[in-house]
C-alpha cells in the first residue's frame, strides 16, 4: 500500500464556448494514507470530478504534482482503480469476464483469473450472476460489479466518482453499507467523490470539503464501524457532523 499525495495541484483548460481559459482546480494539496477512506464533497463546479480525473490520469494536470509513494503519476494505470458513475462495464463480456479483466491485462492465466473473479463476486454477493451480461442486471447489481472489478485488480488507490448517483435511494443505502463492509474487510485506500453530504459522512474516515477549486476544510469522522443506516440516522454525532459539513457545502 502506498501514500497518495496531491501537491498544489491545479487545472486550467481552454473553454472553446466561453472563448477563455477556465481554472477548474486552483490549488489543492492533500495526503491520503494507506487504508484511509476519504470522501470529497462540494457543490457542482467545485472541481471534485476534475481532481479525480487527474488522479486517474484521464486528463493531464496544469500545475503541481500527483505523487504515489513519492513518484509522479501521468496517464491511467492499474495501481489506481476507478469506479464510474456510468458503471462502464463491458457489455460484451460476462460479469465474470468483466471482473477478471484487470488480472487478464496482467497476464494471469484464465483459470486463476476466474478464481480471483469468483472470490470478489462472492464478496459482493454476486456469485449467482457470474455468467450473466451487464444489461441483464439491475443498476445496483451493475455497480456492485463495477466496484469488485476495480478491487479485483488490487489497486493502491480506489477512485470512486459519484458511483451511487444513478441508482435508486433504497439501493443506494444498501450499496453504501456494503461498501463500508467491504472496506473493513479489505482496507483499500479510497477516494470517494460525491455531492451527497450524508453519504460522504457515512462512508469516510475523513471528509474533504472543496470550494471553487480549493480545499475549504477537512473533517475527521470517527464514527464506530460497522456503520448501518438504521443506527446512524438516530446517532447524534452523525447528525452533527452531517449538519456541519452541509453548512460548509452550502456556504461554499
Amino acid at each position: 500500500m502506498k501514500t497518495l499525495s496531491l501537491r498544489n495541484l491545479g487545472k486550467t483548460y481552454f473553454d472553446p464556448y466561453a472563448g477563455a481559459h477556465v481554472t477548474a482546480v486552483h490549488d489543492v494539496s492533500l495526503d491520503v494514507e494507506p487504508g484511509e477512506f476519504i470522501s470529497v464533497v462540494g457543490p457542482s463546479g467545485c472541481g471534485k470530478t476534475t481532481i479525480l480525473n487527474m488522479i486517474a490520469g484521464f486528463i493531464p494536470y496544469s500545475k503541481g504534482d500527483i505523487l504515489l509513494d513519492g513518484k509522479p503519476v501521468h496517464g491511467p494505470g492499474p495501481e489506481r482503480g476507478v469506479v464510474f458513475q456510468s458503471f462502464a462495464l463491458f457489455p460484451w463480456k460476462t460479469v465474470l469476464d468483466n471482473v477478471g479483466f484487470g488480472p487478464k491485462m496482467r497476464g494471469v492465466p484464465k483459470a486463476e483469473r476466474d478464481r480471483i473473479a469468483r472470490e470478489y463476486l462472492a464478496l459482493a454477493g454476486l456469485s449467482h450472476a457470474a455468467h450473466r451480461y451487464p444489461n441483464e442486471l439491475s443498476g445496483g447489481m451493475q455497480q456492485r460489479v463495477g466496484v469488485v472489478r476495480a478491487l479485483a485488480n488490487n489497486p493502491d488507490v480506489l477512485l470512486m466518482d459519484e458511483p451511487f448517483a444513478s441508482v435508486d435511494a433504497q439501493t443506494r443505502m444498501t450499496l453504501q453499507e456494503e461498501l463500508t463492509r467491504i472496506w473493513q474487510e479489505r482496507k483499500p485506500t479510497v477516494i470517494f467523490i460525491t455531492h451527497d453530504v450524508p453519504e460522504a459522512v457515512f462512508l469516510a474516515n475523513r471528509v474533504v470539503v472543496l470550494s471553487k477549486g480549493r480545499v475549504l476544510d477537512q473533517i475527521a469522522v470517527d464514527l464506530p464501524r460497522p456503520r448501518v443506516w438504521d443506527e446512524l440516522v438516530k446517532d447524534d454525532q452523525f447528525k452533527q457532523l452531517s449538519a456541519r459539513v452541509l453548512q460548509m457545502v452550502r456556504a461554499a
Partner: protein
Amino acid sequence: MNLMLQIWAGYARLTRRWPGFAAIIPFIPVLALWTAVSEAGLFPRAFFPGPADVLRAFVTLTYKGILPDYLQDSLIRLATGAAVGMALGIPLGILIGTSRWAHRICWPVLLFFQAIGDIAWLPILLIWFGFGLTTMTFVIVYTVLFPVVLNTVLGVESVPRDLSRAALSLGASRARVLWEVTLPGALPNIITGLRNGLGYGWRALIAVEMIVGTSGIGFMMFDARRAGSTVEIILGMIILGLLWYIVDAWILAPLERATGQRWGLVTS
C-alpha cells in the same frame, strides 16, 4: 367476424411455427396478378411470359448447368469484393474513428469519392483495365468500402469514453483497448455497414456484369436481351431478389441483432 378472427389466429400460429411463411404470403397476390395478366393474353407470350414459363426456363438452365455456373461466378465476385472491402474498410474506419488527425485528413476525401458512384468509375476503369475481372472487382470493392468505413467510424465514435478509460485504468495498453473495447464496441455498426455494403455491392455487381461481363447473372440477363428472351431476363430479376432476401434476412440481419441485442447496445 368470428371466421376472420379464426383465420387470423391460424395465420399467427402458422407464422410462429414457420417464420418463412410470413415472408412468402405477401408474394401470393403479386404472383396471382402476374399470372392473371399473362394468362389474359393482353401481351404476346414472348413479350410478357407467365410464372410457369419462367419456372420452365429455371429448370432448363439449371439442368444445362448454365445457371449454377453463372450464379457461382456472381457470388464469388461479390464475396471477394466484400472481403477486400472489409479488409480495407474496417482498419481505415478504426483509424479515422480513433485519430482526430486521420479524421481531418481522410473525411473530406472520403465524402468526395463517395459521391462518385460505382458506375461513374466504369469509363475510366474500362480504359485502364479493360473488360475483365479487375474492373469488376474494383467496382465491388469500391461500393462495399464506403458503407463499411462510414459505419465503422460511427461505431468507434459511439463507444462510450468511460469504457476505454475503465480498460486503461485496469491496466490495458492502447493496443489492448483497441482489441478489447473499440472493436467489440463498434462491431454492431460494422455489421450494419457490411449489410449495407453487400446490398449496394450486389446491385453494382449486376450492373457491371451487364457491361463488362462474360458470365454471371447480370451477363445472363443482358445476353438474353440480345436474344430477345424475356423469360431469362425475368428469371434473373427473380434470382436477384430471392438471393438477397436469403442473405439479408437469414444471415446478416440475425447477425446484426445478435451482437446488438445481446450486449444491450441496441434497444429494441
